[in-house]
């Protein structure tokens, strides 16, 4: 599996947007319909959508769970700059 190029991602992105607004069953039907028109695109989207909700990365979430630092920063800036 190779990295997606920016062009590949940009081509997939609007379809991904559409898919993510659909519920599980609707999404399956939509993908099925897309598969008849463009099987390669449907296959790529299915592969991406399978990653939705999966555990992303231990470090990412360990940092999120230890996010005292950014939270304090954001709260402060939010109060001071925004309002």
């Amino acid at each position, binding site marked *: 599996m190779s990295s997606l190029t920016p062009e590949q991602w940009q081509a997939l992105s609007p379809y991904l947007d559409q898919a993510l607004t659909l519920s599980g069953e609707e999404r399956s039907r939509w993908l099925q319909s897309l598969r008849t028109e463009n099987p390669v695109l449907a296959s790529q989207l299915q592969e991406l959508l399978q990653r939705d909700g999966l555990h992303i990365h231990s470090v990412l979430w360990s940092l999120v769970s230890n996010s005292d630092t950014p939270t304090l920063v*954001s709260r402060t800036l939010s109060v001071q700059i925004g309002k």
Partner: protein
Amino acid sequence: LESTLGSLIEAAEKGEASATEALFTALYSELHRLARQQLARGGRGITLGVTTLLHEAYLDMAARSGTEFPDRARFMGYAARVMRALIIDHVRNRQAQKRGGQFELISLASDLVDSSADERELTQISEALDKLAEADPEVAEVVDLKFFCGFSFVEIAAMRNLSERTVKRKWQKARIYLHRELNAEIAA
């Protein structure tokens, strides 16, 4: 101070260089005050990380003369990227030090990143985020604001003038992209 910051942003928008500098100064002062409050409450050493992180971010941003922040959202997006870069630099320097390298350590507190964090993985995340920023800047910015600045979806939506649902979808897309990219790196 609150009203001063509002007027400073307006002045910075008009291109007044001194206003940008004053804005950083005001933010830094206020964050420093909050850090001291946290210490007074018996906060852990990570609060020191807040101060040093902000200090480094402040120095970095203040040094870039001519940088303009026409609105709060762009200021925050920029600040988030600077902080991300600082955290990643800090991790990389620690890694270099462990290898016996001769790199000078920057002054971020070592407790900014949990000791259990795998530095190689964090570097991979940073590189994947850079790729995401190239492919989809808006999605990458949501990650910076949420992950590295700790904003909620509601706050990001307000900043970006988007619906919360849209911001959540961008976050989902970012997760999907990063999950794929990180697995591609591992497989490579």
